[in-house]
């Protein structure tokens, strides 16, 4: 049996996730030994047929919609990786604004040449088989998910809070330092990367599906943190979740 053919594609993003893959150093050669990379535009000129499509970036134009649909048709397995692809990421902040206004703000008279639609995550346009969240992706998780895809078993993004990993790493709680952190409502799996380096969690891995709402409310009350402040922080990466909520209201679960 031949090696599975893997193609990497990017949509609206910073290409930092494919760089994370390239940054694996010599370990990259081990990954390349298990798969046959047929498309990776940033470093390759070759193009070909593929079994697994790995998608980076958000869907932000009607051209993107057509392109991702074609990729989905060709791919047996589709993986979305990075915040832009899995939850809309920072591209979602665009949806806080009226699209015509933000287009004119950035591109002035030439705005009409820059078609744009509300930012969406990949699964909001086509079905996704594997998710690897995070901005950027956490390489150990990517390798785990890729292995699952190669042997054909599901990979599930942890659905408990970053706090669980943060406690295991023995970090002091940022709320006790008088700071706001999205760890309590954000999906784990990054080994509390940012908090380990004395920063806060910005929610780049997406919200847990069943957050302890009362507990979170108690925390906000205890530390006197206004709700709009937290919402503003959540909307840095997670604005696009509103599309999911609309879908759920219509009874169509993604």
């Amino acid at each position, binding site marked *: 049996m031949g090696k599975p053919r893997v193609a990497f594609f*990017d*949509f*609206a*993003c*910073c*290409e*930092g*996730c494919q*760089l*994370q893959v*390239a*940054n*694996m*150093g*010599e370990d990259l*050669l081990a990954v*390349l030994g298990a798969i046959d*990379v047929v498309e*990776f*535009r*940033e*470093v*390759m*000129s*070759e193009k070909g047929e593929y079994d697994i499509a790995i998608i980076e*970036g958000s869907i*932000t*134009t009607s*051209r*993107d919609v057509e392109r991702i649909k074609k990729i989905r048709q060709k791919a047996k397995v589709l993986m979305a990786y990075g915040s832009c692809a899995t939850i809309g*990421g*920072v591209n979602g*902040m*665009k949806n*806080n*604004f009226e699209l015509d206004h*933000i*287009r004119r*703000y*950035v*591109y002035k*008279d*030439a705005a009409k*040449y*820059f078609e*744009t639609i509300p930012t969406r995550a990949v699964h909001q346009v086509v079905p996704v088989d594997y998710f690897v969240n995070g*901005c*950027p992706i956490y390489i150990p998780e990517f390798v785990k998910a890729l292995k699952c895809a190669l042997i054909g078993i599901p990979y599930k993004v942890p659905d408990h809070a970053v706090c669980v990993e943060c406690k295991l790493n023995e970090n002091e709680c*940022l709320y006790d330092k*008088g*700071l*706001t952190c999205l760890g309590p409502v954000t999906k784990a799996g990054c080994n509390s*990367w*940012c908090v380990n*380096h*004395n*920063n*806060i969690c*910005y929610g780049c891995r997406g919200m847990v599906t069943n957050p302890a709402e009362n507990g979170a409310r108690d925390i906000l009350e205890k530390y006197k943190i206004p709700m709009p402040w937290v919402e503003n922080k959540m909307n*840095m990466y997670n604005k696009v979740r509103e599309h999911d909520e609309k879908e759920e209201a219509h009874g169509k679960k993604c």
Partner: protein
Amino acid sequence: MGRNVSVNVEYLTRVEGHGNIVVNVQNGVLEKCELDIIESPRFFEGMLRGRSIFEAQHITCRICGICSCGHTLASIQAAEDAIGLKPSRQTTELRKFLLHMETLDSHILHIYLLVAPDLLGVKSFVPLIDTHHEVVRRALRMKKGCNDVCDILVGRHVHPISSIVGGFTKLPREKELDAMRDILFKMRPDMEETVKLAATFRFPHLERETECIALVNDTDEYPFLEGDIGSTDGKRWKKQDYRKVTNEFTVPHSSAKFCKASRDSYRVGALARFNLNAEKLHPKAKAAADAIGLKPIVTNPYLNTAAQLVECVHCLEDAIRILEAFKKKGVDQSEAVIVGLNETGRIKVRAGSGVGAVEVPRGILFHHYEVDAAGKIVNANCVIPTGQNLNNIEYDMKKLVPEMLDKTDEEITLGLEMLVRAYDPCISCSAHFLNVKFINR
């Protein structure tokens, strides 16, 4: 000679971002020669409005994964300029060190994985894994070294965690300084091999004299982080006057927003920096320039890759110098800053306007923010190096094509692709990148 040539390269590969090249020669006359940008616009400058100035760096470093540290540092510089915060000497030295790591990492990626395949006659680095195994391993090892250093210093290279307005949330301790120094010491033999390899590269010929723009200063330091804006045409501007340099303008026939300073176009990046500041390079970098025969003023655009190599040597050696100095005097841990200082009002904000001008791998990068009295961003503007180079690339392409008309279409296409790749364009940075092809002209 009535030669017709039609080149249409869709999805230009081995550049960071999405671009098309379109060339049309009718009866031996060049009618169209364009580099089209097809990256989906992301509207970063628009999205920043209303956000806290302390969030700007976190958001704008995500403009580009490759120049993430460069965007971080330009953003921080603009923010600190706007609110009137002066970083400490220690912070500035650590920022220079961080920038060296990114420049080294990015140049290595470009030289080995993006350009070398052209010079060795293959489509990508993948076939080189078999034919030039040691070369590929060396490239990946060097990249990994840069990344490991960034992991130690700022948590990771792609979207650094601990570098924020005011300084660093976490500072390296003695054993971390040692670990970083060990990694860089181990990189020295690989760097020597890299210089030897580059000396064997035969770059294509094309000569076109142009204006070069980069940071300049009055010290003996090769400037990446601090300085005024300088030009090989002898001009000098304060960074706050960056708009007088970029002069973004629209071309009537294409609606493309181009940049020009003193002439029709200008170049930024490693070759521009080399042409302006070569005498300030580290002695080992000067020796590398001699070994590959690079002397200012260089006018062959393909040699940007050679200038990148010279900068690799400089960045490695200067990074080691910075670490050695910290080893001697130690790192003052009391300078660590607490994130979210704004939330508790510990850093004073004021209404104002600030500019960051930083030399990132592909050239000079400008961030400009206006903030209100509460520290909220009112206006934002980013002018990226590739945007500034675009006009210059087109002038180079227009010079190249007529010189290649006796070659096959494939050779012309490859020559153009290699030319564009030599600039190491980073189109994912297209925060605002105005180059649109009209369908009906």
